[in-house]
C-alpha cells in the first residue's frame, strides 16, 4: 500500500494538469502562461497539460487583481477542483493587486479569496519564473502541506486558512 501511495505521489508530481483563470489581469500574465505551453518552453515536458476544466485540474494558476464579480468565479472554480490541489498566484496583481491597488474595483490579491500555495512575482513574470512556480507547487504537492482536503465546504478568505496566518 505504501508503495502504491508513493507511486501516486510520484504520479502527481509527474502529471500536473493546469487550470488557468484570469481573475482580472491585463493579459500579460495569461499570455506568458500560454507561452509556457508552446514549443520554446514546452511545459508538457513535465507532463503539464492545460485542461481548462476545474474538475480535471490539479494546479490552479491565477493571475489578476480580483474584483467582486470574479471572486465568486474564483471561489467556484477552486471548490470544484478535487483535492489535492495547488494554487499558484501569478504576477503582481495576483499577489497583491499590484499597480492597481487602490482602484475602486480591485479586491487585491488572490489570497484574500482562496488559499495560495505559491506566489510568482513579476509583471508579468517571465515563463521561466512560472515554470519555477509550478514546480515549487508540485514540490509542495509531493511533500504534502497543500490544500489536500476541500471537504470542509467552500473556502473563502477566512482567517484560519488565510495563508498569511497559516504559514510563518
Amino acid at each position, binding site marked *: 500500500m505504501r508503495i502504491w501511495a508513493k507511486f501516486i505521489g510520484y*504520479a502527481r508530481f*509527474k502529471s500536473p494538469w493546469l487550470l488557468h483563470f484570469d481573475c482580472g489581469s491585463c493579459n500579460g500574465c495569461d499570455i506568458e502562461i500560454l507561452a509556457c505551453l508552446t*514549443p520554446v518552453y514546452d511545459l*508538457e515536458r513535465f507532463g503539464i497539460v492545460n*485542461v481548462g476544466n476545474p474538475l*480535471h485540474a490539479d494546479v490552479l494558476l491565477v493571475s489578476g487583481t480580483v474584483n467582486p464579480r470574479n471572486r465568486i468565479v474564483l471561489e467556484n472554480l477552486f471548490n470544484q477542483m*478535487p483535492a489535492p490541489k495547488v494554487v499558484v498566484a501569478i504576477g503582481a496583481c495576483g499577489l497583491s493587486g499590484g499597480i492597481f491597488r487602490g482602484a475602486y474595483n480591485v479586491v487585491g490579491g488572490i489570497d484574500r479569496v482562496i488559499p495560495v500555495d505559491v506566489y510568482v512575482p513579476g509583471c508579468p513574470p517571465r515563463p521561466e519564473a512560472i515554470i519555477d512556480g509550478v514546480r515549487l507547487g508540485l514540490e509542495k504537492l509531493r511533500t504534502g502541506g497543500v490544500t489536500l482536503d476541500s471537504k470542509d465546504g467552500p473556502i473563502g478568505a477566512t482567517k484560519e486558512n488565510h495563508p498569511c496566518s497559516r504559514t510563518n
Partner: protein
Amino acid sequence: MRNALLALSGLLAAPLAGSLLIGLDRILTARLQSRIGPPVLQPIFDVVKLFGKERVVVNAWQAFSAYAYLAAVAVAVVLFFIRSDLLVIFLIQAVGTVFIVVGALASASPFSQVGGYRELLQSLACEPLLVLVIAGIYLETGSFAITAVDRWPQPLMVRLPLLFISLLFVMAVKLRKSPFDFAACRHAHQELVGGVLTDYSGPFLALIEVGHWFETVLMLGICSLFWADNWAAMLALAGAAYLTMVWLDNVTARMNWRLLFGYAWLLGLPLALINLFWLYRG
C-alpha cells in the same frame, strides 16, 4: 483454456499497449510541433494520478457509466483477442459509446450535454461505415469470425482497399483525433471544454482514459486484420494507420459534425459501397 489465456493477455496487454502508444503519440506530436514532449509513460502517470485524486462527482450515475464503458470496451477487446465474431465486437463497443453518452447527458452542464449529442452524431456517422467494413470482411472470408480472417490465404487489403480508407475515417473519429475531435478533445481548447468528459473527475476520468486505451487497441486491431498474414505485417499496418492519424491530427483544423457527416456519408460511405459492390460482383 487457450481462450482464457488469450482473454487474460488481452485484458493486460491492451491497456499497456494503448497507454504506451498514446505516450508515443504525445511525444511524436510534440516533435512535430518542435517540442520535446512528455515522457513515454505520461499516460500512465496521468491515470495513476487521477486514481489518487479526491472523488468528486456531479451525478453518481456517471460512475456507473464510466464503469460500464470500461467494461464494454474491455469485453470487446477480450473478444477480439479470442478471435470472436467481429459484429459482436462492434455491437459491444457501441455499448461503450452509448454509456459515454448517457454519462455525459446525466450531467446538467450544457458542455457535457452538447458533447453527448455530438458523440451520438459521431457514432451515427461512423457506425454504418464500421458495419460495412465488417460486412466486407465477411463477404471476403465468408465468416464474421476473426478466425476466418486468420486463416484467409491472402491479405484482405488486396480486395478491400477502399474499405480500409473508410475504416481510417472511423478510426479518426474513435481515436478522437483532429479533424474529428469535436465531441471530446484531449487538448480541451475547444468550445466544449472537455466535451463528454467535462464532468468526469478523478478516478472516473481515469476509468474512461483506460477505456480509451482499450478502444485504441481495438481500433488498431481491426485495422491490422487487413494484413493478417504475419505479426510483422499486422503491426506495420496498425502502426502506419496510427501514424496517419497522428499526421492528420497535426495538419488539419477541427471540423464540426456537419462536415463529419459530409465526409463520412458522402465520401466514406460511397467508397465502402463501391468496394462492397466489387465483392458482390467478383
